[in-house]
């Protein structure tokens, strides 16, 4: 938390702020709030990671060694909820808070108090999610939500108090995200520097604009769905109870109407930051700015109408299956535009491979695997076999770990010198990259083969023929988990001190954010810059 002093010491900094903990509770400064979002995200990344390492330890061998199946079910569901809502989403919001005002030439976010509130809703929600684990130790309730993160009815209607805790946690997280989105949209639309037209807005901002709109459209539907779940559980309604005239499949529609755009909500900020990194370390301007903007928009729109591919085996009629298959596959077109733009940005550039660039290139390769295996799953005939298998688990971890989390790491290494004013250790960063990328593939590549061989997901025990791949995957996951300690240590070291970073930090940087000092002054842009052609 020593960054505090650095940001405060900047030129023109206020000094009438409270110190210590009260400062963090009451701050309305976009950089402080961004720091809190990112710190919270890192903490929850380790919490969610510890949960899944326990799961992988259980799966190291066939048979039940470490835990009861009920506890196993709780771990996988809460792992997903924590990683998505408490690690990946807050990390992206932290980026937005830190970088958007710097990039568009604004002194702060549009609605600073709302910003503070949005952050401080997160810790109570995270406590609600994980509290049932603790309560169960004291004999209260039967543990956390055990339905998997999808909360499918009727299982979730019958579940224990963990489901109620998860429902309220989702309500709070949803409100927090919607407030954050409103703030970001207001900032982007109202506070850009003169001369910065919407089409000239940096791609990171564009990625976030589409994400924020998607959040405002889809999160309320999820909130409505889990509210129905709550009234089904306690107030005698039958939204999802077939005996009372309801329909459990309806829950799947409501959930995935949110759940699929959620994938793009997690990934669009990363797609937005990638071109900045690639352009910097290729020492070339971003290729296809306009094309990428329209691809973001196209993916956002298409992402809203393809949700059915998540439950193609639930008994959808053939015309609906065909529609969801073709519409899902069509998303690969704008996504391919993004891939080609990334590659074209690097093409014949004077490339150098500092840690952020390593992560960016690793991202492109591994996220490409996620996209191609996604096309396989979108195929109705293939999906009938792969649905609910480890193939799906491997696919979405290539999307969300290699695409999401490695994308976030790209951003952290890229912007950390800007935030702290110090360079991180390049040696440790590169070590972290290679350990991460090798152990990630060691963990998840075998899961593709397990899925192809027919191993279902969400089971604590499995048939003997799956033993070898599971053992490899578990070893990989522990290396992957432990090497993240390097990441945390490197960040800590960089906050504490190190070689001074210049304003531009890297050789090839372009954009307003690199004109300010590192770290930037308390009110980021006291004089609004003017964008000239």
């Amino acid at each position, binding site marked *: 938390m020593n960054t505090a002093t650095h940001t405060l010491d900047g030129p023109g900094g206020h000094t009438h702020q409270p110190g210590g903990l009260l400062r963090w509770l009451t701050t309305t400064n976009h950089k402080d709030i961004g720091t809190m979002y990112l710190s919270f995200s890192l903490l929850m990344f380790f919490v969610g990671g510890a949960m899944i390492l326990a799961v992988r330890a259980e799966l190291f061998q066939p048979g039940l060694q470490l835990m009861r199946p009920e506890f196993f079910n709780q771990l996988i569901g809460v792992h997903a909820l924590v990683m998505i809502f408490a690690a990946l989403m807050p990390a992206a919001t932290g980026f937005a808070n830190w970088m958007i005002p710097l990039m568009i030439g604004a002194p702060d976010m549009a609605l600073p108090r709302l910003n503070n509130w949005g952050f401080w809703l997160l810790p109570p929600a995270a406590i609600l999610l994980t509290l049932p684990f603790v309560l169960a130790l004291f004999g209260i309730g039967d543990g956390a939500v055990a339905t998997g993160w999808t909360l499918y009815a009727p299982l979730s209607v019958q579940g224990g108090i963990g489901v109620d805790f998860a429902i309220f946690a989702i309500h709070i997280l949803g409100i927090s995200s919607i407030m954050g989105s409103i703030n970001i949209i207001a900032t982007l*639309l*109202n506070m850009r520097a003169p001369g910065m037209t919407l089409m000239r807005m940096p791609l990171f901002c564009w990625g976030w604009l589409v994400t924020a709109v998607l959040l405002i*459209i889809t*999160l309320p539907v999820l*909130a409505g769905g889990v509210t129905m779940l709550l009234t089904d559980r306690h107030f*005698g309604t039958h939204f999802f109870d077939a*005996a009372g005239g309801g329909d459990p499949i*309806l829950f799947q*529609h409501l959930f995935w109407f949110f759940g699929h755009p959620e994938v793009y909500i997690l990934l669009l900020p990363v797609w937005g930051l990638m071109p900045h990194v690639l352009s910097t370390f290729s020492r070339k301007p971003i290729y296809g700015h306009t094309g990428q903007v329209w691809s973001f928009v196209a993916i956002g729109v298409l992402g809203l109408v393809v949700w059915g591919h998540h439950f193609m085996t639930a008994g959808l009629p053939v015309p609906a299956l065909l529609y969801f298959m073709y519409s899902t596959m069509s998303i690969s077109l704008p996504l391919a535009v993004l891939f080609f733009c990334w590659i074209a940005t690097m093409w014949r550039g004077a490339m150098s491979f500092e840690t952020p660039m390593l992560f960016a290139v690793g991202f492109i390769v591994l996220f490409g695997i996620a996209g191609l295996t996604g096309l396989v799953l979108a195929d109705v005939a293939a999906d009938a076999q792969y649905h609910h298998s480890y193939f799906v688990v491997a696919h979405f971890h290539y999307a969300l770990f290699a695409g999401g989390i490695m994308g976030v790491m790209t951003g952290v290494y890229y912007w950390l010198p800007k935030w702290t004013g110090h360079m991180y250790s390049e040696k440790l960063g590169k070590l972290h990259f290679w350990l991460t990328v090798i152990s990630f593939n060691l963990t998840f590549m075998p899961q593709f083969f397990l899925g192809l061989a027919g191993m279902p997901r969400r089971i604590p025990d499995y048939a003997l023929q799956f033993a070898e791949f599971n053992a490899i995957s578990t070893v990989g996951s522990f290396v992957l988990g432990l090497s993240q300690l390097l990441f945390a240590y490197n960040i800590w070291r960089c906050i504490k001190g190190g070689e001074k970073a210049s304003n531009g930090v890297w050789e090839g940087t372009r954009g307003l954010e690199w004109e300010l000092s590192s770290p930037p002054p308390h009110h980021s842009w006291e004089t609004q810059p003017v964008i000239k052609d």
Partner: protein
Amino acid sequence: MPGTSLPPPRRHGRLVARLIVLAGFFFAFGFALVPLYDSFCEAVGFNGKTLKDALAANNAPPSAINYSRKLSVQFTATLMPGLPWEIRPLEPAIELHPGELRTTRFLVRNLSDQTIVGQAVPSVSPTVAARHFRKLDCFCFTQQTLAPGESREMALTFIVDGDIGEEISELTLAYAFFLAPKDPA
């Protein structure tokens, strides 16, 4: 310093109000999906839900029977957890001509020593056949109350439309029997 003027404060109220309304709209949209989903399924016959279109079937002329085709209709019934009953179709399958009026029966027995209310929920597969399956009378239209140990034959009267697609030669009507919710919906 000449350059320290902050940019003039912008008013965000209108934009924020619009975005909140948008979020509120989609919260309501989630709930609106409940009836929309039902009417959509009914309109296109997705989801295996059958029609309760007795009037249309009554008005159909007898000549609508298509004697040139034969269909096999199978019946199954399953009990959902929590319902201590026994149920089976008295005829596992029947052959009929499209357009023909038929009645079949299911046997149900309460195995417990309590009076229990049950509710049958039908489903037709293939799902595209559902909207050609017209039930004139069905025990699934109401809840069934069985005294301890009571058994009962329950009737289903139905017509499969004469215009059902040529590609369908076999269809299945499946009943899931639930313990009726405590407070009737």
